[in-house]
């Protein structure tokens, strides 16, 4: 193949339109989409679910399935039009010139094939290498993606690797043929933040090393800022704004981009003084898109008769490098104007003590071995948890998967009973009472909002009926009519139209379903609500609205909120106190300010550094943790974090290897479980700092 002229774009998409055809109708998924990726450039595609960003990626691969069809436009890769290529020609491009990295690494690796064979397949197909040569290359690339013990990994099956290792294998597979373009479709969404940080670093380094261009698809603006040079914001099948990262982040020229940034919790946002501004309304369904500007009905700057008159074209912003916006009014809008002041609310003072945990332990015993039998092992899911929570308070429980936060929620709810220790709920000891044995009053006072609103509602019962059912179980209301009335009041409380009571869950959007989940939780006048990742399954613009709703209800009902999350941005925004967990241990606990500023526990420090922040002014120290979280079945001796701790050398002797650190109480009741001396802890530098606070242009 002739060398490609590197001054020309490697990928050029022009006026691309893609539709899916069902028996009923044609559903346009992407309309009039254009973008180009230069050699070595990383292009970000941002948008909420359903905006068509993954469809664009699959269109580049020409893998739209049987129903999808490119209806207009062209995709040129190195000057060749992909839209008219035959299957045979495409096979030579797929995997060799364009490679893809997927969202779920476990699902995208063949479970019945050894990792080595899956990797070796690529050069065997595209370069005709022998199996032995291909394996040698696979071994080489495995060390390139920084995986330890390549020989073992080559022989392993995908399920024997951790999520982070699997994603590295998927990346290795994509790099096997040294492609010119790499498409990454939400490559880190299924991973923990500290693992995500490692993967992002790897992708950036490899991009630099091989000069690969990237099309990086994500809903996370912070990640885009980390990885990309340029980005393209998509909304409802259209690109609404495109430009360099700094242009779009700092001088956005489309109302949707602006609204998106205002709805995500950036450092500085505060639930009382500077609340998030949710985007009103809902994402339009593909066949219900409005005339004119798609964002029109949700836009603050909407002008009837102009914005809804005709299809809006992309408009170049003068004096920029290909910065374009799909807005008719961008010249009229004062972009520097501060957002309309949100409702400023008073911070509520913590009230009486409602929940007190003392030395709570939860152990599971499991047997190993595929055929049953084998040695019994004890998994210490929770190890001596002690804390208290008061009325009006939001306590965040933070940690990565496997840290024991969900086990704690189960024990508290009574789905499991504690192995040891005490839980005082109001004035009652409940550690040994399973939920079946708790009385209705206790159950209705302690409720839960679940992570996935899609699975937690009964699909064959109307929304109203499900809330009434909760009222019946909690023995609220005197008659059926009274309960219907109460149900409607609850619908008002979660800001759902009363007419929705007759709808089925499938007719609701994710955010609306979560509102139903909240209404159900509060049906019995809950005093303590455990919210297990309540917004992580929702889109960014909806997250803000649901979070605010929770805060409002909390303020009204003086609820204690236990907010379980791995998303530190949202935790920082809404919680009063934070508890950081690692491998079943509470490693740090304190007020939000104490936890988010030094001194840190070394794990908190790494966690803070790993969270991508969508703000160009934020300067972060980069701390990437090596390795994976140890298995709870086989925790390291001594300090649970010692295997990944970068401060370990600062502790004299082998204290970290042998002794579990004591809880150190710092100024203001700030607790840290670490062997580091006070001097070192107090000398830590902040992870996140703001560059000079200039106003956004």
């Amino acid at each position: 193949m002739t060398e490609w002229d590197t001054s020309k774009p490697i990928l050029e998409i022009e006026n691309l339109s893609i539709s899916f055809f069902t028996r009923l109708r044609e559903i346009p998924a992407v309309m009039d989409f254009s973008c180009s990726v230069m050699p070595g450039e990383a292009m970000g595609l941002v948008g909420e679910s359903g905006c068509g960003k993954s469809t664009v990626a699959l269109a580049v691969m020409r893998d739209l399935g049987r129903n999808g069809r490119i209806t207009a436009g062209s995709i040129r890769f190195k000057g060749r039009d992909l839209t008219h290529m035959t299957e045979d020609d495409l096979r030579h491009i797929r995997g060799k010139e364009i490679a893809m990295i997927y969202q779920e690494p476990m699902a995208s690796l063949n479970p019945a094939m050894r990792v080595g064979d899956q990797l070796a397949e690529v050069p065997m197909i595209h370069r005709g290498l022998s199996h032995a040569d291909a394996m040698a290359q696979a071994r080489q690339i495995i060390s390139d993606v920084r995986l330890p013990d390549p020989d073992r990994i080559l022989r392993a099956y995908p399920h024997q690797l951790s999520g982070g290792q699997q994603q590295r294998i998927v990346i290795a597979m994509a790099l096997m043929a040294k492609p010119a373009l790499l498409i990454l479709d939400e490559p880190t969404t299924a991973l923990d933040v500290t693992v995500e940080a490692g993967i992002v670093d790897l992708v950036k380094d490899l991009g630099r090393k091989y000069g690969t261009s990237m099309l990086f698809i994500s809903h996370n603006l912070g990640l885009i800022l980390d990885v990309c040079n340029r980005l393209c914001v998509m909304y409802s099948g259209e690109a609404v704004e495109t430009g360099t990262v700094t242009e779009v982040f700092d001088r956005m020229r489309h109302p949707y981009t602006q609204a998106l940034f205002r709805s995500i919790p950036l450092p500085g946002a505060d639930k009382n003084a500077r609340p998030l501004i949710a985007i009103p309304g809902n994402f339009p369904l593909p066949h219900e898109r409005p005339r004119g500007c798609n964002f029109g009905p949700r836009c603050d700057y909407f002008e009837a008769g102009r914005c809804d008159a005709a299809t809006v074209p992309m408009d170049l912003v003068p004096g920029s490098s290909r910065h374009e916006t799909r807005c008719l009014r961008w010249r009229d809008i004062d972009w520097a104007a501060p957002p309309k002041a949100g409702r400023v609310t008073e911070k509520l003072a913590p009230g009486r003590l409602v929940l007190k945990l003392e030395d709570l332990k939860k152990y599971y015993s499991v047997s190993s071995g595929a055929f049953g039998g084998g040695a019994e092992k004890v998994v210490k899911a929770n190890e001596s948890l002690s804390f208290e929570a008061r009325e009006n308070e939001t306590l965040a429980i933070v940690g990565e998967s496997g840290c024991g936060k969900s086990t704690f929620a189960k024990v508290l709810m009574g789905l499991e009973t504690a192995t040891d220790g005490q839980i005082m709920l109001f004035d009652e000891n409940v550690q040994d009472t399973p939920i079946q044995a708790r009385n209705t009053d206790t159950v209705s006072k302690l409720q839960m909002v679940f992570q996935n609103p899609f699975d937690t509602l009964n699909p064959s019962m109307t929304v109203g009926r499900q809330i009434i059912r909760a009222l019946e179980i909690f023995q609220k209301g005197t008659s059926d009519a009274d309960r219907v009335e109460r149900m409607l009041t609850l619908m008002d409380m979660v800001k759902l139209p009363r007419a929705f009571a007759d709808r089925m869950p499938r007719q609701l959007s994710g955010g609306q379903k979560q509102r139903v989940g909240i209404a159900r939780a509060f049906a019995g006048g809950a005093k303590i609500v455990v919210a297990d990742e309540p917004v992580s399954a929702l889109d960014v613009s909806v997250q803000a609205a649901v979070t605010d709703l929770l805060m409002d209800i909390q303020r009204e009902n003086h609820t204690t909120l236990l907010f379980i999350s791995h998303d530190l941005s949202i935790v920082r925004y809404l919680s009063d106190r934070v508890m950081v967990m690692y491998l079943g241990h509470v490693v740090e606990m304190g007020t939000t300010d104490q936890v988010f500023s030094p001194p840190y526990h070394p794990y908190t420090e790494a966690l803070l550094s790993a969270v991508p922040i969508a703000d160009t002014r934020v300067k972060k120290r980069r701390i990437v943790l090596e390795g994976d979280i140890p298995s709870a079945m086989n925790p390291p001796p001594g300090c649970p974090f010692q295997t990944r701790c970068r401060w370990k050398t600062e502790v004299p002797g082998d204290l970290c290897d042998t002794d579990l650190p004591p809880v150190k109480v710092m100024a203001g009741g700030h607790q840290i479980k670490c062997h580091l001396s006070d001097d070192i802890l107090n000398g830590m530098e902040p992870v996140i700092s703001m560059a000079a606070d200039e106003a956004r242009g």
Partner: protein
Amino acid sequence: MLFFILRRSGVMVLTALALTFVVFFMTNLTPNLEKLAKSEASVRMSDDQVASWLDSHGFTRPLLARYGEWLGVVPGWTHTDASGRVTGRCIGPDRAADAAPARCGVLQGEWGQSSVFKRPVSEILARSLGHTGWLMLWVMLVMVPTALLIGVLSGMREGTATDRILSTFAIATTATPEYVSGVILIVVFGSATAGISPILAEWGWISGRTLFQGTATSAMTKITFWNFGLPVITIALYGIGYIARMTRASMTEVMTQQYIRTARLKGVSFAQIIVKHALRNALIAPFTVIMLQFPWLLNGVVIVETLFNYKGFGWTLVQAAGNNDIQLLLACSVVAVLVVLVTQLISDIGYVFLNPRIRLS
């Protein structure tokens, strides 16, 4: 692994004991024994004579003791009649009373005497199992590859014309029981007066009167395509449809998996995707089904062997059941139980090898 097999084998033995006891109990119910007495001694016996015959042949002993005798863990009964002649379970025409062993049961390899065939049960069983073994072998050789091929072909491109045609065929064959398909096949291919044979004979394309032979009796001495074709097809057809349906379901599911997309997007050709990536994953579920087909074949064998007059296990079972041959029936049940349990064990172990996710780590 070894522990697993040992444990499973232990469970198997227990299951076999329980099941054979149930069969023993059923075949040894009093009316059955009375019928046996009358058929063995004299049809015109009085009730008293029946009772004394039963008593002198050890049938009045407690059920558990008799089950123990049959198993060979309890010493066999002996009976001394008025003339001082000693008879007993282990005493026979070729074994004198003083030379006879105390126990003679299944564990000693003595399965008893068949009352229908007047031969040792072990001999009859060995012969009939041999015949059925050949039948099963050919059925499996025809059924499994055909079924997998149909399943994979229809599952790899769901909803296409190929898929629809093959699926219709599969559903039609599963929906037709052997006693229907067997009769239809005989009429179409093995009848001198109906179907295609008369036409072919008229045209002079076949030398005999029928294309296939409607009976498989000659296959007991020499198996040929023409005498064995119809029974094999009859049993295989049913299984083909069933296994093909399972394979298709599993294949269509695998084809929608993300790792298939991964393979496609790394440039693997469609044929390679099927062979290297989809097949092994798609075969995990049907493997269990194929293993379950073995016991199911016993079922089909009963009908088909009777229909085609092929003196295998199924035919023997029918004869034993129809003629109240207790010893033979018991032996047949032991064989059936073992076939079921052993195939289950093989299927469990094979599953572990096919599916690396449940392999010992």
